[in-house]
């Protein structure tokens, strides 16, 4: 995925300014930065929920800008929004069926696969999503995105609100998925430490601008970046 010269405005405020970077296939790209750096806006723009003022987003040769959100989803862009977005009034299985609905896939096989991946969901398939714990909801949201077999997965703060152990487990799962599924992941995280541990590449945003862009290892070893933008102290 290639993002070039992307600018997004909310009224007079520029949430994203002239952002350019490339997310490589089958790799995890972490998008890092402080609160209000424009990370969530970036994901929402990719999904078509926000219309940019200028710039382009191209994925496998297809321009995304100007397309409707549901069209973009059907192009193979999965988006797990911040706060997970599971439908509490639906059962676990209904949530998963909804995720598969718009795609031409074998539903039964898809469900099996997700239940295998996330056994706890299999156990609770008839339960309403409102009864799940935070971690289980996050898994459900991931499973619901994955069942559509996306090629690009946008994850918005997946570890937010989770216990550190659960969060770490989740990161490992993401890493495995990326390796086995030939999946590109754009991972937005405030928890830079965890994200950099599993990411291949990293982009650092500050007040809507790209301040660093490179391999995760490079970013992780840059003291200045760590201190000023990521709030990580040795």
């Amino acid at each position: 995925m290639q993002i070039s010269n992307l600018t997004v405005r909310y009224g007079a405020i520029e949430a994203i300014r002239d952002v350019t970077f490339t997310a490589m296939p089958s790799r995890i790209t972490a998008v890092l930065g402080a609160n209000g750096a424009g990370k969530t806006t970036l994901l929402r723009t990719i999904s078509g929920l926000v219309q940019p003022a200028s710039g382009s987003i191209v994925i496998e040769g297809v321009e995304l800008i100007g397309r409707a959100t549901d069209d973009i989803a059907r192009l193979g862009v999965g988006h797990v929004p911040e706060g997970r977005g599971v439908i509490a009034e639906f059962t676990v299985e209904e949530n998963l069926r909804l995720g598969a609905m718009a795609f031409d896939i074998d539903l039964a096989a898809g469900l099996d696969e997700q239940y295998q991946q996330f056994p706890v969901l299999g156990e609770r398939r008839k339960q309403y999503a409102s009864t799940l714990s935070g971690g289980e909801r996050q898994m459900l949201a991931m499973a619901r995105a994955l069942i559509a077999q996306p090629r690009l997965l946008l994850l918005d703060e997946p570890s937010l609100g989770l216990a550190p152990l659960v969060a770490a487990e989740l990161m490992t799962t993401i890493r495995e998925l990326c390796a086995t599924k030939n999946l590109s992941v754009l991972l937005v995280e405030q928890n830079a430490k965890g994200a950099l541990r599993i990411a291949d590449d990293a982009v650092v945003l500050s007040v809507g601008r790209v301040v660093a862009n490179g391999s995760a290892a490079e970013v992780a070893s840059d003291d200045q970046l760590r201190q000023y933008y990521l709030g990580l102290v040795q």
Partner: protein
Amino acid sequence: MGAFFTSRIVSDILIGAAQGVLVGLIALSLVLIWQSTHVLNFAQGAMAMFAAFCGMTMLEHGLNYWVCVLISLVAAMLLGGVTERVLVRPLYGKAEINSIVVMVGFLGILESGASSIWSGMARQLTSPLSQTYFTLGSKTLYLSPFSLFQIGSALTLMLGVAALFRFTKIGLQLRASALAPEVSRLLGVRVSRMLTLGWIISSAVGAFAAIIIATSGSGLFPSNMDGFFVFGFIAAAIGGLESPGGAILAGLLIGIIQTFVADYLSPSWVAFTPVLILVLSQLVRPAGIFTKNTTRRL
């Protein structure tokens, strides 16, 4: 046994139920729209009336009753779909009063428009089935072939809508679009089509009720749905605007209680009976008797 079925209480229940399922259908159509688009459709009754006129006036040109019904239902679907696309779509996310006013304006256009096209005169629709009640011995059993059809088809329609929502792919998408439009979009669901579809189904349900009302009651005329709309709205509010089943039950309840009031107390109290039921139910459970308690979201 015959004496039981022709007793005063059973008679009142049968008369009330026939009336009540119609109130329930209107309530159901209101709930369908409220659920999917959070618009309180004041023009619901008028849209149903207009669609009924489109088809049922063909009776005068010698067309078969059921063909006319079919034409009306198609007209209703078109009207519902176009209304959602043209009038309602710009209102999403706006203040509540905006949609109330637009639908009130649309109500005026439809009723005056129908009067302009078809005149304000009541048209009697020749019933396809006998409306004479059956008798058991010398007593009347308050059921006729038409009222059986009326109750039966209304219940079938309600079950059909429920099944559609519960068991089909489309139903799942309809519900998801209503509950969480943005998430549904992210999952590739064509939400805007689903909203239109919600209006289409709701309009068809309303038009069916209007046709039955015109056939069994005082005929078809531009304001013939006004009273039923108010009762239907009250039923929907009693049931809780989120609950199709609650709407239907509340409609039945209103019909039956009204008949009892007319029979045992006074016919002149009938018009404000539903309101008393509403006030009582709202004081007990403000969000409707048939909805689960939810906490206020900030």
